[in-house]
């Protein structure tokens, strides 16, 4: 049949063209998720590749059978067998219930295991974590270093190979904190505190984003994670401690208005309770909402632990 051959040629030409196109597009691209610089992101990449492999156990047969059946059982192939009343076969059906069940069982185990091992709330090994408090604002990121008594706008500085513990809240519509090169994202919400543990294992500047739409300045709301050596980090802290600009309730109020801000700034933290007070100001005025409640309480959600 002429049409069949035409379709065959068309499909092949288009497929080759697309493969070439995407190979060309991928040239020299930095793909953070596949080529990460953090411990968590590395582990996530391994799971991604293994899951892709497991999926291919189904996908490859599906595509092969689709093409083979389409070509072989086309109406004008008189050599092909035709059995119009054949519609059941227990063995075959058991096979394609069974194989996916087996694959999903393996994946299920990985899922359960990795949900725990890569839980963003789980503290990472490798020494005492650096504490950073994160406030998502309209539309900028405020970072507070409670131990170094510093605050930064739209950038963080952190040492390589040391765990970082982020506590996150928002004074804005729900936002999300994501540094693709380092791994895992987490939502930041008004009056609540969520947590994230990351660890960089390479030096460099990595971009972070909000992934959840939070109003006009959403697209410009980015920050840089500057990962340096331990020495450089200590030097940075010492230098910044000399800086004039202060971060306290008054300065914060000026910052917390609905306005995009993309510049990177550093402040000395002069109000140790700033993060807590930002969280509380967005919390309910009703008395029943105690501190315990407003945190996204991990322990109550997980009965088994």
């Amino acid at each position: 049949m002429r049409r069949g051959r035409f379709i065959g040629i068309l499909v092949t030409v288009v497929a080759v063209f697309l493969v070439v196109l995407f190979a060309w597009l991928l040239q020299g691209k930095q793909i953070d998720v596949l080529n990460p610089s953090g411990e968590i992101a590395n582990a996530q990449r391994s799971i991604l590749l293994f899951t892709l492999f497991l999926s291919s156990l189904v996908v490859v047969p599906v595509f092969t059978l689709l093409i083979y059946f389409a070509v072989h059982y086309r109406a004008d192939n008189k050599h092909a067998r035709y059995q119009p009343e054949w519609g059941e076969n227990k063995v075959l059906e058991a096979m394609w219930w069974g194989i996916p069940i087996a694959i999903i069982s393996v994946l299920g185990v990985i899922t359960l295991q990795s949900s725990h091992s890569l839980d963003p709330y789980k503290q990472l090994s490798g020494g005492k974590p650096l504490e950073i408090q994160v406030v998502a604002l309209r539309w900028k990121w405020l970072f507070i270093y409670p131990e170094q008594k510093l605050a930064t706008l739209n950038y963080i500085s952190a040492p390589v190979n040391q765990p970082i513990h982020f506590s996150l809240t928002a004074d804005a519509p729900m936002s999300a904190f994501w540094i693709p090169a380092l791994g895992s994202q987490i939502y930041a919400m008004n009056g609540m505190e969520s947590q994230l543990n990351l660890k960089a294992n390479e030096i460099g500047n990595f971009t972070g984003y909000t992934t959840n739409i939070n109003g006009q300045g959403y697209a410009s709301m980015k920050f840089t994670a500057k990962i340096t050596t331990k020495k450089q980090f200590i030097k940075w802290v010492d230098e910044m401690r000399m800086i004039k600009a202060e971060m306290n309730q008054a300065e914060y109020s000026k910052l917390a208005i609905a306005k995009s801000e993309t510049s990177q700034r550093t402040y000395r933290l002069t109000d140790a309770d700033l993060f807590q007070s930002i969280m509380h100001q967005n919390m309910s005025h009703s008395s029943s909402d105690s501190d315990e409640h407003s945190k996204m309480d991990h322990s109550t959600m997980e009965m088994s632990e």
Partner: protein
Amino acid sequence: MSQLVDFFIGRLSPEYIPTEPITLAAAIGLPIIALVVVGFITYTKRWKWLWQNWLTSVDAKKIGTMYMIVAVLMMLRGVSDALMMRLQTAVAVNGASGPFTSDTFQQVFTAHGTIMIFFVAMGLLFGLVNWILPLILGARDMAFPVMNSISLWLFVAGMMLINMSLVYGGFSNGGWLGYPPLTELEYNPGPGVDYWIWSLQIAGIGSLLSGINFFTTIIKQRAPGMTLWKMPIFSWSVLVTSVLIMLAFPILTVTLALLGLDRTLGMHFFTSDTGGNPMLYINLIWAWGHPEVYILVLPAFGVFSEVVATYSKKMLFGYRTMVWALVAIMFLSFIVWQHHFFTMGAGANVNAFFGIMTMVIAIPTGVKIFNWLFTMYRGRITFSAPMMWFMAFVVTFTIGGVSGVLMAVPALDFQVHNSMFLVAHFHNVIIGGVIFGFFAGITHWFPKIFGYKLHDTLGIWSAVLWQVGFIVAFIPLYILGLMGAVRRLDSYSDPTWQPLFITSAVGVLIICTGIAVLLLQLGYSFLKRKELKDTTGDPWDGRTLEWSVPSPAPHYNFAVIPTANHRDEWWYRKQHKLTKTPKSTFKDVWLPRSSGTGIIVGVLAGLAGFSIIWHLWWLLAICFISVIITVIRRTLNDDSEFQVSATELFHEVGKGR
């Protein structure tokens, strides 16, 4: 005095008239189009014809056609939105400004998602089910024909409101599911979010009524002899979908109502202060939202089951497992909603549970794919357009399935959630599954409704262009997601993203060509309707009862209600030469009269929505009371049917064949 004025005009004010050039153009364009249409109808004196034959019709096939018209028009708007988004991201790099401001861009993607799901996918779904469900069951009509018309007009009312927002007031900028607190008064005091809430609320109630109608039709109106296990698989898929609609849509209604209460009466269900909890909203909206995905895709699976069997000239492989797979998906679809927000911070065990449940859905879905493939095995496959849509579906949907399984692993989802990877994934399954499925279904059943076939080669070209366009548009988005591009960006600073965004824009243009060819196919086939006429009533050597009646199907569907003893009843009859209907079996038939109830309720509901959005409380009260009176009046009407006599039917059938 000013209080009195305020009472009558609510918050209507000149400040909401659009000012931005692009929105302004749309705001002027839409009323002009409406005027042209009204003018044309008036000029050709078609109002009476339109009112009697279409607007007040309770014939499911005509209602289906009206759904289809709305859905296709809305698809054009949704695709324009998509094109606008990709044009913006193709240029707005590194400080360069795109054609749209952030606010417009955000309204555009909100409108795109809302329109595509609620008014395109749902519209095509309701259209197709209305066309085919009664016919495939061997029934004359839906169980509740007037309620069916009400469903349609509530759907239209929702659609009118969403388009109204373009002309006056602006639309929501909160994304298609409108997460609070962004959509609360605190951050969004204007009417945009209210347009979003009330257009979905009104259309959603219509959907719920449709679900009840389809369910009742399947349970009560099947042809004698057609037990559930002899029902064609398409009706099984609609049965499962209508159960999902009945269980899920009330959740949507309540959720939107609570958000509406927050916004109009200053309550605090989902606000971030005073005891409100936005996380509750996110749970509720997805408890509806996830089943909604299956509400859309399961009927498309049903279409493919009929299509593959028909064009392979072979019975469907594994009918029973197909049914069990549908039922399994129905149950599972209700216990996976949390996978839409693994990143909200629930514990590892909660995430793992929902992740594993999500993967489990891949099992019955995979089974269905293999069953379709083995329906082709030892068949005689004709590659007409519906079969090409099926081939495109298998390729696209399988890729979407893989990315879906990837994202079902919570640990992985933390790395791709809300990125372009997610965007690519759900377009993979929704376009590949739902849209391709309904296009296959429309092409397949078109002759049954209109009496002529659609031009086949143009249909194949459309499928090819859609498939190629799809790959070019969405594979770059997967890559962008892995590079760190998040969704809904109206600008970005990394220049290495730009080539991929441009490629994606080209892909959207190819899809647009596919749509143009689709429209061309409709137009060309209409012009050539004489050559493409279906004289037999059974152009594809069909298997189920709808092919036993002439094309186009008469308004009473079946002159004599058939008895069905086999799954593929019509195929069986053809094999055993039992296709003639003896004269003695003809009986008088009672059919429902046209009714204006549906359109009146629709207009009143639309006005009610408008009055809530603009705080016109007096108008809301009038509309609300009028709806109740209209419905009660209808229930008191005893003269709601007319008769077609047996001899009349017999002669018509003799003529038609």
